[in-house]
């Protein structure tokens, strides 16, 4: 335990140190007097920002540092490991076929969900933006699934829509059209479970991104459209291609990266759709990274060493995505820090 605190300590206090040191430096006046004085901006800054920084350090920075440390040890069933293994856990993870296949699952999932959600939410935004009657009503209808949780949506999708055996809306519709019913979730081949997973997430998310696009559409100056119609551009495709879509560049970039990051964190719907009833075992297919980590690090094996190594690898991947987002949105430029 002592070693843990020792290794975590420096990283923990570093950002706080300058502020903490200053109030100690003027011990003559009482705290209240110093707060009341006009010149104590440093103290006031830490009164306002301190609680947040302490929480962030305790529950974001320390866990990451700890997991970096754990990832260098053999740590099965223990949080205070003693056997240092260096980078072996990382090597194990990167060569572990199950971990690599979880990354492939993410790639396959993202390849479906990102473009689909992007296209659907943009189309809905364009349609709603054109509607002049009942526009708020349509916006609300498309947005309201956001209020639904993945657990509840999974229940509806699993039991009521994509139920494999006899009942279920999807198979009823298929049979009415003269096709056979399908086993949607229980077979990896053909991988029809993607239809279930992707349609559920699409339903839950589209409204959120539609709102972002609607906000973007409203920021496009009307003058541009007037100019285009003077220039003889036809309404519809031409204006969309040459005005609307280019004007939505920043929104589109933000939506794409938000979609990518949220796909990376997918857990709820996979877990709730695919865990076998009763047996509480997860099938060997369709395991995205977080599901894999959940079972490796927190499952029966409690393998925190390998789990932490996996978490660090995933964190690096996500950080890369976010940095790309930063570049695309201009977060990295100085002026955006104000």
């Amino acid at each position: 335990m002592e070693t843990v605190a020792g290794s975590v300590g420096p990283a923990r206090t570093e950002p706080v140190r300058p502020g903490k040191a200053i109030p100690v430096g003027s011990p003559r006046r009482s705290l209240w007097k110093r707060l009341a004085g006009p010149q104590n901006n440093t103290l006031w800054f830490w009164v306002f920002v301190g609680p947040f920084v302490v929480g962030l350090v305790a529950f974001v920075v320390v866990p990451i540092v700890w997991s970096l440390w754990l990832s260098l040890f053999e740590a099965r069933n223990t949080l205070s490991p003693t056997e240092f293994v260096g980078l072996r856990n990382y090597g194990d993870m990167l060569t572990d076929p199950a971990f690599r296949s979880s990354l492939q699952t993410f790639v396959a999932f993202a390849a479906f969900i990102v473009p689909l959600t992007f296209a659907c939410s943009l189309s809905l935004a364009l349609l709603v933006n054109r509607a002049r009657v009942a526009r708020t009503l349509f916006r609300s209808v498309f947005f309201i699934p956001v209020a639904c949780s993945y657990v509840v949506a999974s229940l509806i999708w699993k039991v009521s829509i994509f139920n494999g055996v006899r009942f279920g809306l999807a198979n009823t519709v298929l049979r009415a059209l003269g096709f056979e019913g399908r086993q949607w979730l229980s077979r990896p081949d053909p991988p029809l479970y993607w239809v279930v997973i992707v349609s559920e997430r699409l339903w839950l998310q589209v409204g959120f991104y539609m709102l972002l696009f609607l906000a973007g559409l409203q920021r496009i100056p009307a003058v541009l459209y007037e100019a285009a119609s003077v220039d003889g551009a036809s309404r519809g495709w031409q204006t969309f291609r040459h005005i609307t879509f280019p004007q939505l560049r920043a929104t589109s970039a933000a939506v794409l990266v938000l979609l990518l990051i949220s796909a990376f964190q997918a857990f709820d719907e996979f877990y709730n759709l695919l865990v076998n009833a009763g047996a509480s075992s997860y099938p060997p297919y369709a395991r995205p990274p977080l599901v894999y980590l959940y079972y490796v690090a927190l499952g029966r094996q409690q393998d925190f060493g390998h789990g932490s190594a996996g978490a660090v690898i995933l964190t690096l991947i996500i950080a890369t995505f976010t940095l790309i987002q930063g570049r695309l949105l201009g977060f990295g430029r100085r002026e955006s820090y104000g």
Partner: protein
Amino acid sequence: MAEVRPTGPRAVAGAAALYGVLIIAAVLFLIPFYLLVRNGLSTDLEISAPDWKLFPSSLQFGNVPEVLDNRSIPFLRSLRNSVIVSVLQTAGAVFVASMAGYGLARIPYRYSKAVFVSILATLMIPAAVTFVPSFVIVSKIGWLNSYQGLIVPVMFQAFAAFLFRQYFLGFPLELEEAARIDGLSTWGTYWRIVVPNSKGIFAAVASITFIASWNAFLWPLLVGRDQEMWTVQVALSTFLNSQSPQMTQLFVASAIAILPLLVGFVVLQRYIVEGVERTGIGG
């Protein structure tokens, strides 16, 4: 858009197509909600009947009190847990993030920018990826199966602090200066002048936080392991994946579980929309 639209048969046809597509899409979006209510008011037999019917043959309103009275399902208990966790998490998150945002935006301090950039840097690490180490920390300090374990670790949202900072940067400085001249301290200025004049941003961040907290699954699944500490999502998930779930009760319980957010959505729609828009734009 204020332009004059062409009239005539082509325009009418265009409008008809537009509304046709919108109405079809709207019906598709509402079907899952209909199924939730339909199944909740059916009998168990009817849900699993081989010939699927759009309308149940009789409405079983008795299913509702049955769920609430069911002793083997701690559903009311899980609802109570969800209310406690979501309310406290939202209040706590908004409180600390708004103060941090104000401090970063308005209080001059030599290292202010460094602190802000450090906070932004943690945005690169989404909470979901750190669930393994966070779980390790929380179990180490003995917070498993406790409200503080469910609430505190997810209460510090760098993005919320960022949104508040961006908002407070645009807050009218004259109001704050007037307050200072009237003799208010920094805290007094913030609490009596800034906060009451910023209700919109508070409502926006609070409603987005509340939705996320109410619907959260992975963290409550890890931390609230004992039955008494299940949130409503964990309870529903456990019954969905149990050996032979009573389907009607499960659907009724799910409908009840999304009700608070649906009501909140109708009442607070303006703020939720604002919150979502800010989430995407980042300020």
